[in-house]
């Protein structure tokens, strides 16, 4: 008979070996999919307000990299009879735009894109007739934002009143910030030296936040939504405007954006809807099997603005461009002397927008 304690010692040896084994089995995740390049992406938004109407045409590139704009396409706006009513002008980087044309409520529009021998056309999309009222507000709080640690966060809210009609309404909001950034006044030529014009820098707040609301399955007529959040920084030293563009879209467009929201918010959890390619309403006329990404949407649009000043900010802000008479010119940061340097790729202008009015 084998003694129990002998067995135990041997068991222990076997067990220790078990412990050693998995060390080499633990791997880091190394998962990169095969990249598909060259898929066509067309996105256009046509609204009922006087603004720059834009279509973007691009191609996908390697995983993780931004798509590449296609500047040599011909882009047309079509009416409900599928007649060309306007041609978009290429402004580079795959962007095409038209001015002076806006959508009419209840009308149907499409776009047509010619690229080499291929003709792409979107479905006709009807401009919705309903619109909601947004009442904006904001706050500054300390809370976890991009990290677990509390940060100073600026949050924009909308208290939205839906029309009392029972007709379905589908809403999407985009939120853009515009702030003024005065350049430091340094001695120069001229008498007196001209004051450098301030920069008006604009950017979308939280571009990957999709604000959607489906008003079709609810009796709620007034709802309060968080539309955007951003970290508080020295952009709030001077007046800071938030422009909220409410897009009333049709059901198909809403479903498209809902799918986009699913794929960008997928966290891989058990209960997540598995991701899938999102197909829009644009197709190759000759070859319907070709995958065309993107969407052409029409929207009834309303822009609402709110602004904040330094007096509203409960946090201490440092002005990096404060002028000191004895400070050498070259010791000022480049963002104090150049709008381009401050904007860091964001849109900017020296001219105040026509709505730049505050008390």
């Amino acid at each position, binding site marked *: *008979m*084998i003694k*129990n304690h002998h*067995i*135990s010692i*041997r*068991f222990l040896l*076997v*067990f220790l*070996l*078990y*412990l050693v*084994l*998995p060390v080499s089995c*633990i*791997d880091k*995740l190394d*998962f990169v*999919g*095969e*990249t*598909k390049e060259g*898929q066509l*992406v067309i*996105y256009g938004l046509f609204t009922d307000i006087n603004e720059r109407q834009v279509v973007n045409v691009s191609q*996908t*590139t*390697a*995983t*993780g*990299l*931004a*798509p590449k704009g296609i500047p040599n396409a011909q882009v047309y706006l079509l009416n409900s009879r599928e007649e060309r009513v306007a041609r978009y002008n290429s402004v580079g980087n795959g962007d095409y735009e038209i001015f002076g044309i806006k959508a009419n409520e209840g009308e149907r529009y499409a776009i047509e894109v010619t690229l080499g021998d291929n003709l792409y056309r979107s479905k006709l999309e009807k401009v919705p007739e309903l619109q909601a009222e947004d009442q904006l507000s904001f706050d500054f709080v300390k809370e976890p934002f991009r990290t677990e640690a509390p940060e100073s966060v600026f949050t924009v809210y909308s208290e939205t009143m839906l029309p009392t009609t029972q007709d379905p309404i589908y809403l999407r909001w*985009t939120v853009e910030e515009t702030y003024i950034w005065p350049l430091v006044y340094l001695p120069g030529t001229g008498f007196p030296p001209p004051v450098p014009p301030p920069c008006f820098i604009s950017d*979308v707040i939280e*571009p*990957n936040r999709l604000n959607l609301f489906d008003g079709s*399955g609810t*009796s*709620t007529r007034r*709802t309060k*939504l968080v539309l955007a959040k951003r970290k508080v920084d020295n952009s709030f030293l001077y007046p800071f405007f938030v422009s909220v563009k409410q897009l009333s879209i049709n059901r198909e467009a809403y479903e498209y954006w809902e*799918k*986009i929201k699913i*794929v*960008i918010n*997928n*966290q*891989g*959890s*058990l*209960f*997540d*809807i598995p*991701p*899938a*390619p*999102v197909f829009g309403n644009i197709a190759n006329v000759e070859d319907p099997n070709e995958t065309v*990404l*993107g969407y052409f949407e029409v929207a009834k649009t309303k822009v609402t603005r709110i602004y904040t000043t330094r007096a509203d900010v409960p946090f201490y802000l440092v002005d990096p461009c404060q002028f000191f008479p004895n400070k050498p010119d070259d010791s000022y940061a480049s963002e104090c002397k150049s709008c381009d340097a401050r904007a860091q790729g964001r849109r900017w202008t020296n001219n105040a927008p026509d709505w730049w009015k505050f008390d």
Partner: protein
Amino acid sequence: MSLKDQIFFSSQTVGKQRIKRNLNKVVFCGLTFLILAAVGIPNLLAQTVFTEIRFEQQDFPKRAQYFLTGKVTHLETNENLAGVSVHIDGFFTGNNTDKNGQYILSLDSGRHRIVFRQFGKRPVHYLVQLYGDGILDVGLVNLDFELEAFTVEADERDRNIRSPITGVTKMDINDIKLVPAFMGEPDVFNVLQSMPGVTSVGEGSAGMNIRGGQADQNLIMMNETIVLSNSHALGFLSSFNGDALQNFTLYKGAVPSYFGGRSSSALNIEMRKGDKETWKGSGSLGTAVNKLLIEGPIVPEKTSMIFASRLSNANWLLDRANEVDVQNSKINFHDIYLGINHQFTEKNNLDFNLLNTGDFFRFSNQFGFDWNNLVGSLTSRNLLTDDLSLVGMVAYGSFNNTFFEPSEVDPSKIENGLYYFQGKITGLWTLDKVDINFGAEAIQYQMRPESLIALTSESGILPETIRKERGMEYAPFISADWNPTESLSFSGGIRYSNYIQQGPDSIFRYEEGVPNTRLSIIGVDFMESGKVVRYNGFEPRFSFRWTFDKVNSIKGGYSVMNQYLQTISNATGPTPIDLWQLSTTYIKPQRSHNASLGFFRNFKEDEWSTSLEGFYRTTANQLEYRDFADLFVNPHIETELIQGEGLAYGAELLIQKNSGGITGWLAYTFSRSLIRTTSEFPEIQVNQGNWFATNFDKPHNISLVTNFHIGRGRTFNTNVNFSSGRPVTGLSSNYVVGGIFVPNFGNRNEFRIPNYFRIDLSYLTNGFVRKWDDKINFSVYNLTGRRNAYSVFFQREGRTPRLVPYQISILGSAFPSFTYTVAFGK
């Protein structure tokens, strides 16, 4: 004159007894035994002792056959032991001792290895030289007195050779307890996933995938009653309390014709009957689960009951997590089992079984689930004649589910569920060489209306309710097991399944020439009652066994199975709340063809069992969801689904060590599970209609279960699991729409997550108090804390738009648990 009287009494153990010590030096297959060899640990296995006896006949002419008879008793109590199996030359002969402990055998003259076995008793081995009729009385002792040896199986060890059906896995609770499990709970599903051919999508997903089948293609039963909701804690545990469990049988090859309704496999879990003589029970306190068991005679010798309950207490573990969301989460579950058995006569008895399970899970303030399940059955077992028995069963099942979202703009919940009535009558007619099973089964399903309801009074959700289907499935069946010779057996049967979807129902009409979508609806027909649609089909079942040279056998099987009830889900994996969906006008029933072939060989007096099996299955009308399917509160669910062909094939290797100081098994499975959608409309085809891997396709699976029997009831157990990473849908490219960086996902299930690896261990020992019958179970699940990927998601790195892949692990650390159990009454 009784047979016993005819036996000529030979000399009292004429031959001399000789004890032969036969040390087993077999190296356990697989990793453990390579390790053992490497560290030079020989002779670890326990010894098998043969007692040699010779019976001789002096005065009569020699005969070809002689009788061997005797009585088996308990060595300490002298109690006659009924049901002791007698194995001759490595085979279970079908002979068991009767209620008086008597047995009688007719054997060829010559030398035979005879083993007497009963679970919980130490087997006794004899080497009998039979040259005359003889009497051999045998005494067995409890295994408690056996310190270094253990016999794994409650069932016969050579069953894998003798059983006529391929692809059968059978195990009892004592074996189940030896496999380390999550929360230290002995669990059927956990054990099954360490057996060949059984996998799951991953931790935290309900259900099992058996031989490449979907989770809903398994018929899961408790005492032959269908149990639709059968897991706790998002799938970590099954709903069947190990304390009340007797054994389980999984048919993954040729499923007998008396089981049907699913297209892949059948799993029947037998629950224990209460003790008819004394009241006893046990209570367990654990780090995650508390349990109570009470059983005993309501009417001594006539009526017994067993009550077993489990209640989770895992929330304190969540409180200690680092994540705020996890701290704010909550998980509760319970199950209650009640079994009452009444014996009218020796030939007639009645069983009542009731299982109630409930789960509540809330993730932070974001979403949650609440589901409960009730299954009750009444079974009458009647022996009409010595050759004919009838079993009748009626059952009721109910499943309710709530999915709630408390934090959205309009807090809401969705409620759905179903209930069903099941009736089954089965006859068994036993002839000389043929056993005939016959009967019929019927199930009436009624889906509960699905409702969208406001969760709070402030919520503006407009309540919505849709009516769901009802249907009836019924099937007569017959099968015969024919054993023409010792070495050959055939089992054949047929089931004729019928399904009728009954009104009321709204049948949507769709535009022709385009896919069925929400937008292609052109009308709706309402049917208040009567037949909406009907499907039926013959389901032939066949299997054979050919045993040559007594330790080798070849078995094969073929079966056709129809399925009229399936789950639909578009979650990453199967979840406990997946919607059950009956076949309708647009959702055709699944129909599978299953073929399997296996080679089985035992070694060393059945101490080792090995098998190699291959399988191949095709399934018509397998369900798949369309991209971004909207399944809840959808009156035209067919617009979100697509059907296709399923294909599964593979091979399974099992090497099992049944007795000795170390027991366990090594299982390797190669398995593929593929699907292709077969719509005539390319725009709704998944992956362009090409074959693609299902999300549970894991080609390679290895599991090694090792039980070290240290003695005095102590065991140290390990469970090592490896499997290929499962398919996921991955990122193909990126693009920008409206300033939003959007990941463009590739074909469904095109990529794979990293391989899965996990080690569990458990140590079972006696408790602290000598006078009590107390036990301790210490176990560690995922000992190495390996963060096994469950799925992959893509997230921006910092402030750049670049998307990088991240893996998510359901259980990313070691999970220790401790359970203390005290048994009372004996």
